């Protein structure tokens, strides 16, 4: 799985590459994916094979690591519907594949989940679960838990109703479907559901916290990360923003959008829920990674869930109950004034309320959040969470919008600008116990790549200019960097090769929402292009060009 383990720590025990020798890293081999769109996937290494999924058209490559130069073992082309490209909100990305029991599972942009024989690349089953004609796509990496392939849909900008499905790993049939809006029976809320806060208690809140029928086109999509705790037998997944973005068109708390569910993986039954951003005003999807840790919190051992959330807070939740233990901003936030730990509710800032016909300026963070999908890494050696993130603010104006199935349902003019300090990105090491940053590195562009931490006390991440960087896990000191052919927005990994040595791999290829200006050749003269992101990225075309190349490094 892309997140390394079910707890999603992205921490590797490998220590051959360390603070002292990382400066000697050199390229072991490269591989062109043949697709010049945003490469958000994590390469997956199982045994002596590396698997890569490209952005649309979602080609899967298997590379044989046991031979010099890692030649191609097989490739699989699913040939997704080209029209799917028009309904993918933020470039045509894919976040990777998952492996279990000799099979490789991945999703295609046009709404298929496919199981391949990992050895031969032959398809075993193909489940068509998303419909592009209502704007549904799939971009996430699946997670396999107890013989079930967990998948969710994208489409929060198209009025698509969010869901999570569990497909049988054996034959692909749908075992359960949990919607993230609508009546309790659709959301799989039953007698076991025990949310911690009063705001999440009541019957059919997925209907009653919306204007009539609005929940049917209300978003709440699940396109991010899922974690799993085998002891509690719970999966944890977030829910995306409510649609449309213009909040005037959906008075109410808009359950169960912009929140997080704990569910039983066998049945999908909800155990608890917590809402990061009730009645979301700024497109704060709640789908980021959840890092599961067992630690001492204020003297007591707690099973916690750490979530650097899009709304700008670093949440610590008790993962058995959904209680918020801590919520501190990890960067500039003015869209809210904190989190009330008694009620669990985000405290709105009355100066930053958006609505129809009103331009509200300088809202931080932006719609893309203080951090978007790009996953952080946790090192148990340092106790620090390494967070790749953005530093952007925005102006927003709500406008009327018509729902036309399969077309965008946003209703908001947005234009983004660099945040305080002018650096548009940052890489922050967060001291979880101390509830404060240990150090933070400024980056010119948003840090849209994932991070990986290692026992060698080296942390890796990439920048949108194309630098692949190794920094000290303790101090953040830059130890090594390599300029790749295009901007990096992928998830770096590290693995032990068949020769017993440690390797580091990353896909280079700019794109995603932040890099759409390059991968989609957008026009920087329109401040609202790419839902307003282009305004903050006007100069990216001068810094990098589109690409799609795998880089693998090792010590000499």
């Amino acid at each position, binding site marked *: 799985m892309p997140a390394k383990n079910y707890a999603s720590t992205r921490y590797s025990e490998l220590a051959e590459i360390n603070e002292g020798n990382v400066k000697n890293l050199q390229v072991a081999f490269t591989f062109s994916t043949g697709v010049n769109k945003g490469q958000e996937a994590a390469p997956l290494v199982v045994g002596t094979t590396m698997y890569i999924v490209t952005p649309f058209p979602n080609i899967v490559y298997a590379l044989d690591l046991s031979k010099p130069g890692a030649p191609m073992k097989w490739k699989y082309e699913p040939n997704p519907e*080209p029209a799917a490209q*028009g*309904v993918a909100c933020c470039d045509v990305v894919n976040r990777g594949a998952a492996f279990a029991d000799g099979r490789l599972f991945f999703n295609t942009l046009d709404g298929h989940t496919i199981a391949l024989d990992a050895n031969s690349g032959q398809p075993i089953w193909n489940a068509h679960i998303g419909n592009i004609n209502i704007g549904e796509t799939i971009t996430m990496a699946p997670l396999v838990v107890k013989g079930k392939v967990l998948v969710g849909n994208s489409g929060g900008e198209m009025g698509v109703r969010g869901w999570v499905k569990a497909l049988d790993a054996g034959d692909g049939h749908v075992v359960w479907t949990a919607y993230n809006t609508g009546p309790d029976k659709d959301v799989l809320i039953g007698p076991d559901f025990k949310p911690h806060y009063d705001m999440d208690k009541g019957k059919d809140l997925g209907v009653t916290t919306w204007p009539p029928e609005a929940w049917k086109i209300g978003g709440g999509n699940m396109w991010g990360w899922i974690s799993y705790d085998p002891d509690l037998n719970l999966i944890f997944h977030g829910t995306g923003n409510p649609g449309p973005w213009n909040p005037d068109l959906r008075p109410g708390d808009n359950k169960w959008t912009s929140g997080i569910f704990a569910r039983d993986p066998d049945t999908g039954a909800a155990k608890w829920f917590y809402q990061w951003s009730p009645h979301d005003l700024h497109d704060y999807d709640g789908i980021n990674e959840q890092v599961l840790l067992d630690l001492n919190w204020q003297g007591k051992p707690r099973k916690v869930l750490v979530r650097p959330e899009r709304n700008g807070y670093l949440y610590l939740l008790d993962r058995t109950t959904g209680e918020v233990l801590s919520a501190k901003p990890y960067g500039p936030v003015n869209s809210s004034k904190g989190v009330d730990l008694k009620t669990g509710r985000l405290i709105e800032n009355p100066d930053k309320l958006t609505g129809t016909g009103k331009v509200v300026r300088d809202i931080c963070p932006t719609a893309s959040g203080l951090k978007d999908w790009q996953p952080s890494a946790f090192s148990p050696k340092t106790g620090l969470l390494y967070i790749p993130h953005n530093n952007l603010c925005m102006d927003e104006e709500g406008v009327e919008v018509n729902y036309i199935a399969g077309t965008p349902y946003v209703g908001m003019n947005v*234009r983004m600008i660099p945040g305080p300090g002018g650096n548009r990105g940052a890489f922050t090491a967060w001291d979880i116990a101390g509830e404060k940053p240990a150090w933070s590195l400024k980056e010119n562009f948003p840090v849209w790549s994932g991070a990986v931490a290692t026992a060698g006390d080296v942390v890796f991440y990439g920048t949108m200019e194309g630098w692949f960087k190794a920094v000290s896990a303790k101090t953040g000191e830059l130890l090594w960097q390599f300029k790749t052919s295009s901007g990096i927005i992928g998830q770096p990994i590290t693995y032990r090769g068949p020769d017993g040595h440690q390797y580091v791999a990353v896909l280079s290829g700019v794109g995603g929402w932040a890099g759409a200006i390059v991968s*989609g050749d957008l026009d920087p*003269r329109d401040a*609202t*292009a790419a839902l307003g992101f282009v305004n903050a990225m006007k100069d990216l075309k001068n810094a990098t060009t589109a690409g799609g190349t795998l880089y693998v490094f090792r010590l000499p």
Partner: protein
Amino acid sequence: MKPAVAMLLLAGLALAACQREERDTRPQSALGSGEQPTPVTALEPGGQRPSPTDNKAASFEANAFHLSEGKRLFGWFNCSGCHANGGGGMGPALMDEKWIYGSSMESIHATIRDGRPNGMPSFRDKIPDDQIWELAAFVRSLSGNAPSSAAPSRNDDMMAHPSENRMPDAATLGKSP
């Protein structure tokens, strides 16, 4: 200036203004159903490709009323959701000089009516034909292909870019933005 000349000038201006605003009082309500062939390529083996001419095109282009209607419809039918205010997003930029399927009124009309394979939906059954022409005229104004006397001026909303009547012709701008 002699009064006669001034009168003439005024009359000329008034006439020009008439054309600027000319419109049918009873627009056709038929859905997007025009069937004129519109080639999407410049290649025609061995010969000259006939340039498509639809007399509809001329009557919608350079007409302030139709352009402003096109601008309204661009938001109304969620074109702006995919193309933003011309800079692009899920769909390509429409304000630059690059055209995949052609920049003529006829080509753009066909694009909107029939859709295009890589994700442009077909609006054939959603938008009346005359309104597709209005949209096509407005799309051209985004790249400066409409007389500034007729193209929309100030926005009521957040200004995303200079108003259409101040847009330079993207093709002759020299360099890509």
